[in-house]
């Protein structure tokens, strides 16, 4: 009522000519309506939005790759793509909206720098984007395809699984699309809900012939993406979108590669092995600190990095040492990649296990909107799982 009165009193200030009736964008109407009263400057609890479930922990500055520059995740991606376009004249980048810089700004500046024949928009069609990428790779180009969200990769599933993955095998190595790399934003982002939060790595882990890679940070992302691009097999590179701006590190300006299929031990420990990838690594690092502080438990934290083909040796060696394994991912637990790791580890390390292998994952539901804080495998759930394993 009062709001309505305020609205009507403000009307005198609005230009009432036809051209300014602008119900659309750029009108001050909405902002005016929502301006709080002078006395009220903090929001009620239902107006606040939830803070992130982790704190990004940057790695030490790498010194072996030359001069570094402060970059966030999307800038480190841009840097990798820039290096690639500079050194490989056959390299092309394409997908929806990449020309103006991309919805996550990963391709900003590249079209101006390298030309519109090398950085270009495609029609809105994921099966076309991947199919086109396969064909370009078959013809010898370095094809870097962007899928706008991993949630939308499924129309391209046939092209990826039936075509890209099998091209070399079925042709007896006459043809291949090894110079294809597919990039897609991945994982929870706080409000993404069903279709802007998915982690589909498990679907692709079941497909021999492709590689699936997920970085945890800007330095990792640039090195792993450059490895994927150089790799002579079609690769899918999932980029944790929640880290695009939140993760900032000193990243080398020159190109460098981080080898695929080599899991990285981030922190050594003796009591429990914690395995994760992408955003969840930062959760695990906090869990390891909590376990040490509150339970006196020493955790070995491993970033798997490459989901397919995955580094069984490093994981198994660690579990032989610690006797306990916790694997955590946002994707739903049933058929998630933790199941594959768990199955292999129990085969290889059965007698070394002190407790059943623990998986702390998303529930078997679609990714919910408002229930995200309850859905995600947060540090408290992981902490509780460690307690159970220690006390088994």
């Amino acid at each position, binding site marked *: 009522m009062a709001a309505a009165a305020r609205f009507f009193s403000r009307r005198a200030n609005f230009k009432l000519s036809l051209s300014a009736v602008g119900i659309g964008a750029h009108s001050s109407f909405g902002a005016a309506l929502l301006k709080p009263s002078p006395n009220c400057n903090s929001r009620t609890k239902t107006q606040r939005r939830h803070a992130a479930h982790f704190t990004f922990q940057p790695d030490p500055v790498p010194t072996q790759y030359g001069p570094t520059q402060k970059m966030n995740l999307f800038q480190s991606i841009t840097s990798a793509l820039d290096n690639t376009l500079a050194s490989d004249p056959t390299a092309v980048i394409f997908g929806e909206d990449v020309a103006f810089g991309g919805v996550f700004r990963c391709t900003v500046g590249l079209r101006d720098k390298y030309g519109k024949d090398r950085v270009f928009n*495609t029609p809105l069609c994921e*099966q076309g984007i991947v*199919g*086109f990428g396969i*064909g370009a790779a078959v*013809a010898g180009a370095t094809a870097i395809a962007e899928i706008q969200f991993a949630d939308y990769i499924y129309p391209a599933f046939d092209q990826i699984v039936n075509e890209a993955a099998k*091209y070399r095998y079925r042709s007896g*190595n006459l043809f291949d699309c090894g110079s294809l790399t597919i990039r897609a934003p991945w994982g929870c982002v706080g409000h993404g809900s069903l279709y802007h939060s998915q982690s589909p790595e498990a679907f692709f882990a079941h497909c021999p012939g492709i590689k699936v890679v997920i970085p945890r940070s800007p330095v990792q992302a640039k090195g792993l993406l450059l490895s994927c691009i150089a790799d002579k097999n079609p690769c899918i590179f999932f980029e944790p979108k929640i880290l695009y701006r939140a993760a900032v590190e000193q990243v080398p300006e020159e190109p460098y590669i981080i080898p695929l299929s080599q899991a990285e031990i981030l922190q050594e420990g003796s009591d429990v092995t914690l395995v994760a990838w992408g955003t969840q690594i930062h959760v695990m690092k906090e869990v390891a600190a909590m376990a040490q502080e509150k339970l006196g438990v020493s955790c070995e934290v491993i970033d798997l990095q490459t989901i397919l083909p995955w580094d069984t*040796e490093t994981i198994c060696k660690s579990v032989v040492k610690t006797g306990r394994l916790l694997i955590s991912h946002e994707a739903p637990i049933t058929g998630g990649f933790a199941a594959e790791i768990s199955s292999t580890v129990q085969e290889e390390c059965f007698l070394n296990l002190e407790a059943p292998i623990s998986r702390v994952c998303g529930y078997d539901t679609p990714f919910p909107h408002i229930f995200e804080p309850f859905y995600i495998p947060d540090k408290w759930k992981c902490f509780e799982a460690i307690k159970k394993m220690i006390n088994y």
Partner: protein
Amino acid sequence: MAAVSSMRKMYGLCFHAVRQTAGRKASRLLQHRAFRVTAVHQQQPFDSSLEKPQFPGASAEFVDHLEFIQPNVISGIPIYRVMDRQGKIVNPSEDPQLSKETVLNFYQNMTLLNTMDRILYESQRQGRISFYMTNYGEEGTHLGSAAALDPHDLVFGQYREAGVLMYRGFPLDLFMAQCYANADDLGKGRQMPVHYGSRDLNFVTISSPLATQLPQAAGAAYAMKRENLNRAVICYFGEGAASEGDAHAGLNFSATLECPLIFFCRNNGYAISTPTSEQYRGDGIAARGPGYGMLSIRVDGNDVFAVYNATKEARRRAVAENQPFLIEAMTYRIGHHSTSDDSSAYRSVDEVNYWDKQDHPISRLRHYMTARGWWSEDDERSWRKQSRKTVMEAFERAEKRLKPNPELLFTDVYQEMTPNLDKQRESLWRHVQQYKEHYPLDLYDKYQH
């Protein structure tokens, strides 16, 4: 040339269809609409003082009369042909006037393919190979188009284009090796018969999923455009595969990204048992081209010269102008879909016989040749004897050859052997050593580890 006049004809047909809707005032406006392929729309500066549409999405006029565009399927896009069913040239200026040597080469390839088809089909019936697909009735589409291309042009096929590979020189031994999956197969025995491929002959290995090759062809053509080496891509597919989402993707991408590419649709009337009346309601595949902004033509697929002329012109312009072309070659699938199909379950023997006897690409070309004194009964008899002999000899060689080393089960999944696959390979080796009498090792090249 042919494409443009056919476009004009189609444009005129639209006008004709519009006239049929009892001459309304709007008809005069309608003739300026639809199917006119204009240059890429340039965005004009916005000026609402003019009574012209300003929408970025379409360059068109306003119309004040409600009328739906009539899809024209009664008298659709006309079918370009050079010879009549008796092999006589209809319009002499369209005769490509190919040399006797070239025409004889067409004929011999088509008949050799036919002979190979008969023998391999029969061999499947006898349990000697696992599966086969014949090309009966469509030999004209293969030879006419293949001959119009350069040897460096890249070919993406569906599965009924063996004549293209044959024309390019793929030896009988390698056709047979692939069908028998023996140790000579370039594909290392991994795929079902007729999934041929050849790097040297620029023929991308066939895969079973339909229409996946259309967007791939667009990507390959784009890469070739950037290389600037005067290479084109041709992409074959059937009218059934044209219903797949990938077909829409391929056509749209090739047009928007300006790719030097020929889409060649073999419309042979059936997708296994599904007739065209159940595959689409519009005017076939050619009518879809203009929807993508693509130059399109429909040709008589059983007329080798029509196929040749259309493909030649499309290839020339695709490379010169960096735009895709759509050729719909009308033909008929005389054979069954494959050895797993018995088409008498869904079509009459009379229908099949009509095409076999009255409108066959091989017969029509033969009439053309005999009319010029280029081919006699004696030539026919001795050629048939010779081709049958060479096919049978290749067949017997292929049949005797061992299968590839079982180790090849594990290679080429990735470019490199991975630790995981190495373990599995080791595991199979140990298992077979222990249970060797239960595995058909005598059929395979020595199982080397």
